[in-house]
């Protein structure tokens, strides 16, 4: 999409973005927000070059605050916490489709849910492949369109998938299938495209049940602890939650693709606040696909149809 060219047209805004991004990099210097809505930085523009995106759709952040973004060209790009491009590499194959899930583990492994090749590829943070696991199918040790990866405190790996095989499976540290943790019907509706999973500090599993427009909460053995959400546009309702991330207070932030916003919930599922609405300008979102909170406390949002990542000070 060419929409981000608008940034170049609005010189004053562009200067403010650059200024803000530069200021973020200065240690101890708090940059002024670029917008009244709290955006403190933005990076990316349409294209296939370094630092450019074509429909970015997943992001993760490592322990050092570096941001990894994968886009529709099947490239993974790494950025500094203030959005400076560092390194890029491509998935080995991309004709069948591109990945939609990334997870950076604290031990230096980057898990890529290589969705359309029905596998997970494990890289180090510089793009060197370490391992891959999974094969196409519905059985044990197989995937149908994996969407996201999470790792618990014991090192077990969890992978969500969909397309008639909507479930979350657990894998051992050495990438062997262990068991299916979540699948089937919960609270009157079968799981429909679990698009994101997250394991919080209390070692419970959150699942974004995207096509049911709800969030499911499990213990790591797959026992349902809670659920909330229903299709809608008002606060508390959800519309295609595509990504989730735990907040420091034990709550959850939800990236809503369909409502073009981020919504914060407490642990009980009560909506705390929302941020963002549909648009092209800074502080506005267009089909946001992913969001994650960095170690610096800032929220990074994949603003997919605007081909950029917005940085927000929550």
């Amino acid at each position, binding site marked *: 999409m*060419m929409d981000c060219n608008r940034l170049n047209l609005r010189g004053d805004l562009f200067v403010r973005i650059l200024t803000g991004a530069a200021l973020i990099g200065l240690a101890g210097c708090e940059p002024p927000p670029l917008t009244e809505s709290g955006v403190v930085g933005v990076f990316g*523009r349409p*294209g296939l070059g370094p630092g450019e995106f074509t429909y970015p759709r997943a992001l993760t952040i490592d322990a050092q605050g570096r941001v990894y973004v994968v886009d529709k060209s099947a490239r993974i790009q790494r950025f500094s916490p203030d959005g400076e491009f560092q390194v890029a590499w491509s998935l080995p194959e991309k004709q069948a489709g591109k990945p939609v899930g990334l997870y950076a583990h604290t031990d230096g492994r980057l898990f890529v849910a290589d969705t359309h090749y029905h596998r997970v590829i494990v890289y180090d943070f510089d793009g060197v492949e370490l391992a891959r696991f999974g094969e196409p199918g519905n059985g044990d040790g197989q995937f149908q369109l994996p969407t996201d990866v999470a790792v618990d405190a014991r090192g077990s790996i969890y992978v969500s998938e969909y397309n008639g095989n909507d479930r979350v499976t657990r894998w051992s540290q050495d990438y062997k299938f262990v068991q299916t943790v979540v699948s089937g019907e919960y609270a009157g509706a079968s799981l429909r495209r679990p698009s994101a999973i997250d394991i919080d500090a209390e070692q419970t599993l959150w699942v974004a049940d995207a096509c049911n427009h709800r969030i499911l909460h499990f213990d790591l053995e797959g026992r349902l602890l809670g659920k909330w959400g229903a299709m809608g546009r008002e606060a508390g309702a959800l519309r295609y939650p595509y990504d989730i991330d735990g907040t420091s207070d034990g709550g959850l932030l939800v990236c809503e693709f369909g409502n073009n916003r981020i919504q914060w919930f407490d642990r009980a599922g009560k909506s705390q606040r929302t941020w963002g609405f549909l648009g092209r300008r800074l502080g506005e979102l267009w089909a946001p696909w992913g969001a994650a909170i960095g170690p610096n406390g800032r929220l990074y949002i994949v603003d997919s149809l605007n081909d950029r990542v917005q940085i927000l000070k929550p």
Partner: protein
Amino acid sequence: MSAHLAQYAGIAVGVVIFVAAAVWPAIALVTQALVDGQPATPYSFPQGIFLRSVFLAFGGTLAALLLAMPGALVVARLGRRRLDGWIAGMLIAPLIFPVMVYAFGWDRVLKVPGELRCVWVWATWAWPVPALVLGWGWARLGRRRYEAALLSASPPPAFLHGVFPILWRQVLACGLLLFAFFLGDYTVPHACGLIVYATELLLAAESSPHPRAALVAALPVAAAIALSLLLALMVWRERPEIDESDDADLAASAGWSRWLAPLLTAICVGVPLVGLMHSVPVTASVAETLDTYCREIVVSLGVAAAGGVATVLMGAALATLPGVRWLALGWALVWAALPGALIGSSVISAYLRIPSVYDHWLIMVIGYVARFGWVGIVVGLLAQTGVGRAQLKSARIDGAGAVAASWRVALAGNLPTLACGALVVSALCLSEACTTALVRVPEVNPIALILIEKFHRFEDEILVGISLLLVLGALPGAVLAGVVSRR
């Protein structure tokens, strides 16, 4: 005075729309491409994909021509003058339904490799076009020879030896036209899970802010399409003179075969639709679709309707101007041959620096006019050559100027044709996915793109719901096409 004012205002608006949707984007694309210079990432020509696209388009063309023969036979036996309007309408109407929906439907009933399904979908969707063209030619040129040949041979050899030597130009022209269309088509291969050159082209246009990238990438396919159209035109111009005296006493010989073509149409349309409806609970799917995407559907309908009206207004206005109409038709034919991604890029190049247009739904209307403006011009010309020619002559004799007579007599007398054209173009806009993928704004989430999104994410319920709504949206245009063809 007010009639004069309305006439000139209408023409002026039409001309402005033409400039805004066709002339200015073309200029902007070329100048922007020249100014931009080389894109950062050099374009590498995907030779394998291009060859595969050519092969698929050729397969689709061949299959459509073969499938058209029974329909052509029916049209030939009925004769042009006696061709039942409803039969012609039934042949034309399915073309208005979004072809993507056929692809999704066949996907559920035809478990074959994507390449074969793609060829089949193209053929079962497009065969009425060659059926009508060949059938009319057959009736006027080769019917007697065919019937004479039937005395000593079965139908296929009778066609080959009796009819083909006379009709080869029509066959070739139809084939080239279909080939040109299939080569530039993005939706059917996409819905069959195939990557073709049009897919690559859209990706190139989407992933680069430089229109030069899209322009360079479009050149091979545009050249192939233009060559096909040029050949088709040359072949068509060389067709022999027509002896229409052959067409006198044909209706009696039609018999049961008059229903063969509608039956084929019903199968080609019905099977994919039933396949689609059979795969999920229809009522629940439509209800969920309406519940989830009610706003998007309403907005998409509104913008598509605006696109349909603007397109036909432009076509009607251009067709009114005596010195301009054939130039506009020529322009429209060339424009029609261009890939959707290139048209999208040109519209963006033209309006990127005009926020009042670029940021609003208006740019989508312009994009639709740019994509289907050629249909509008054809509709305008049809209206000029439709009913009312006698009145047109009378008006000229009474002293009316050419423009005034065209506007007040020919257009006013052909309002159903214009309304039908507007509905048809609206239906086409509603299901347009390629140009719309580039020319889109946040406030409008076109349901054609939602449909593709659901296809990619295997959300069958919403996919079926939107597909059926798109067919429903095309239905008024299809019905009116039938009514108008009866007149």
